């Protein structure tokens, strides 16, 4: 078990290194001269050269990468070109805001979608199943900004139940803050709903079709016991794995939702820094997201392993 975690962690390190190289190339090399990018098209050649020298952009590529990685690992992330504030504290602060929004969405949608998926599996091919399947599939594939816009039009513009702004006025209590986050969280939930529910349904159907569920049924066990103890336990493993990968989708969704609702999270920070060519911020946010993504996948794998006695007993 421990070996599994260590092995996976050891695997994450080279992957993150490769990702960092790719990001470094994409952000600092592909767009052209970084000094030019920072100062814009109207600066003189001397000014550009001076900035390049200041920031070390005139050194050889490999040296630049090593220096950049070194300062990144020692948490010297520099200042934002656009906002002028330290990148590290900016990123962490925005990450915290995003985490609140994501947590709200996940806390509601994970249990709900698993429940819907299981209900659909138990009522396989019945009306409940069809409604759940078609609705969740449709909601899942609609981009977050589309459902977000529809929600705003319906519940913030036409019927004014929810505020248009995702940010509560300064000094509000926790309930007000959650209240402001509900509307932005719903599009995130929609997208997650389909994936998780579909996986839960498929896992459950597969489990219900197994020979061991047949054994349990023909032993004359009560339906509840069959569903909960025999089927559900085995059905949840693929669902948990999917939830791990969904954290990544969720980050993509955060970029969109935060932009739409003007919410100061890491997603909006990333999108803005990409638009405004704020190189240090873009690099930091992307690497942080990649790390979170891989760690959440690892966490999912560990939980899946814990559900499987074969892995627990080291075979």
């Amino acid at each position, binding site marked *: 078990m421990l070996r599994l975690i260590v092995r996976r962690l050891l695997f994450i390190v080279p992957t993150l290194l490769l990702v960092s190289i790719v990001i470094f190339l994409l952000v600092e090399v592909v767009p052209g001269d970084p000094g030019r990018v920072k100062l814009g098209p109207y600066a003189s050649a001397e000014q550009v050269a001076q900035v390049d020298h200041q920031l070390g952009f005139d050194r050889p590529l490999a040296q630049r990468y090593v220096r950049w990685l070194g300062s990144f690992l020692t948490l010297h992330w520099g200042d934002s070109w656009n906002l002028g504030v330290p990148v590290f504290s900016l990123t962490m602060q925005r990450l915290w805001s995003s985490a609140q929004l994501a947590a709200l969405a996940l806390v509601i949608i994970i249990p709900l979608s698993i429940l819907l998926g299981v209900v659909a599996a138990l009522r396989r091919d019945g009306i409940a199943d069809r409604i759940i399947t078609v609705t969740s599939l449709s909601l899942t594939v609609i981009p977050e900004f589309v459902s977000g816009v529809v929600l705003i039009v319906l519940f913030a513009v036409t019927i004014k139940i929810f505020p248009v702004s995702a940010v509560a006025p300064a000094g509000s209590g926790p309930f007000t803050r959650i209240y402001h986050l509900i509307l932005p969280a719903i599009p995130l939930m929609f997208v997650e709903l389909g994936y998780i529910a579909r996986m839960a349904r498929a896992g459950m159907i597969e489990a219900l079709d197994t020979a*061991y569920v*047949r054994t349990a049924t023909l032993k*004359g066990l009560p339906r509840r016991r069959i569903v909960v103890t025999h089927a559900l336990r085995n059905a949840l493993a693929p669902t948990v794995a999917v939830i791990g990968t969904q954290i990544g989708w969720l980050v993509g969704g955060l970029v969109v939702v935060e932009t739409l609702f003007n919410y100061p999270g890491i997603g909006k920070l990333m999108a803005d820094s990409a638009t405004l060519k704020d190189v240090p911020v873009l690099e930091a946010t992307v690497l942080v997201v990649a790390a979170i993504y891989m760690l959440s996948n690892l966490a999912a794998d560990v939980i899946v392993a814990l559900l499987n006695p074969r892995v627990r007993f080291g075979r």
Partner: protein
Amino acid sequence: MSDARESRLTIGSDAPVLSIDDLRVTFVRRDLDLPVVRGVSLEIGAGETYGLVGESGCGKTTLAMALMRYLPANGRIDGGSIALDGEDMLAVSRERLREIRGTKMAMVYQDPATALNPALRVGAQIAEVYRFHGGLSKADALERARAALERVAMPDPAATLRRYPFQLSGGQQQRVVIAMALAGDPRLLVLDEPTTGLDATVEAEVLDLIAELRERIDASILLISHNLGLVARMCKRVGVMYAGRIVEDGPARDLLTDPRHPYTMGLLRCVPRFGMRKDQAGLVPIPGFLPRLGSGLEGCVFSPRCELATDDCRESEPELDHWSDAERARRARCYHSDQVSGMRAAAAERAPGAAATSAGGALEISNLGKIFRDGRRRIVAVNDVSLAVAPGEILGLVGESGSGKTTLAGCVTGLLKPDDGSIRFAGQELPRSVAQRGSERLRAIQMVFQNPDSTLNPAWSAGAILGRAVNRLGGLRGAARRARVEDLARRVRVEPQHLEAKPGELSGGQKQRIAIARAFAGSPTLVICDEPASALDVSVQASILNLLAELQASGGISYIFISHDLAVVRYLSDRIAVMYLAELMEIGGAEAVFTPPQHPYTEALMSAIPTIDFAHPRRRIPLRGAVPSLSAPPSGCRFHTRCHRMLGAVCIEQEPPWQDVGEGHAYRCHIPADELCDLQVAAAAGDPE
């Protein structure tokens, strides 16, 4: 209707435990109604063991599922009745059905590995029955579960309770399933192919357990199997099913020694009995195919495949009691029951015998080794095997799963690269990989695979498959190629129009014929047959075995014939090699290997074959313990952990020497030949049965 009347007549006054009357079950597949069980009636008395025999698709498993009231969503019971202890099973409420399952009837399944929940401890799974049927507390239920494991002779039952299914061997898993089925003291125990897929020695172990339990429990047993020998050994009464109907039933022994339905006779004639040789008697296949479900079946369903069929048979179907003998409690659904015994004479058609030319070795394998790596584990799949195959000889390769026989074959073909040793073919060293062998050797060494459903590319027509093989292996093009394809098809008896068909449109037997033709496309000199008939129904098996024997005899070709079926191997082979845990244990002439002195493992394997030979029942030698893991094989003699003739420390500490018996027969054991021979002859003579 009359079936029911008849059965009342044959059974005594005791009320039957199970009584099925005119049961009909239909499946819907792709919008078509497929009648799978078409009016089956049978009764099983208290404490009786009833065997239901038939090939795949005859409806026997569906019948079992219908009586457990556990049909898939696309299956429905169309008519008839099922009564268990007088209670109408088709009318019971859901709640009552739940009570009945587990307490009044219980089931043991084909594959114990999947029948147990992988995520629950064995103890919890057995205890459930006591908790939910007996209302016991968790602790009490676990205690009862321990006792249940004791009852099925599980070693160390207390520890087993805490194990997960994957930590048990196949035989132990099946013991757990049986313990679970018996936990509720059922009136009826349904065993659905309880040993299919298990190794021969494990199968024997499970059958011994069932036979022994049969005496101790008062449940009636319904045993379902495709294996006549197994049913004969276990059951008092037998019913033979064909295409959704019972065609014949009666006391096991009487029915099998004097079959009265041509299908029963066909089944008996198409499997080699143990001891039968190809040069003494031929196998007689049942021609044709199982009728397609749902197609209009007129007359006797078996008539298209029956050599006795007359116009009567094709016009109307006989009743099950058309022929009956109340005294012997026999019935048969046939107009020509009296002629069935006469079919036997027609069966004496002899398969041509092949004489092995002894000069030189076609194939010489020396010190061959193959290691697989799975993460950090090293699995030695073949260890230091040396053997030779003479030109024109059939070498049978026998062993349980994991013995390394298929890996050995893979090394010979070059599909697997051996790690050690050498293979010489026609006097020359063979390159290890198939990619380096060159067209001449590719042509010469070919293979027939096990699974007819995957051996042919489903996207290609049969003709294209043969054409490509003729082109690559025979170097023919254009008209010559076409002629050669047609010639091959003729030799394997596939009609020319079937060359247009894709594998999905061919029957299993036809697919295997095409696969055989493909192997013979370039006139090979060595063909490896890896269980070529095991995946086929017995009635088709025979024709494939006959075809292989005929092709071999006509061209002086050598075979390496791999099979787990000792009777088949003995029937076909000139010499036999026995493998156990990656090592060669014994090799010798086909008859020599099966007579003393023989390796104790061979002796045990041989004793494990269920037989229909009532005159000469064999003494069973139970093998102890489970097959050890290949990644940590036992020291000394690899067989010592299970050997019934173990001498002592020498077997554990020292690798056994080869004992030469003469005439190319040798085995690997610490017991010298004459001593072993005496032991084994004495054991056979002292046989109590």
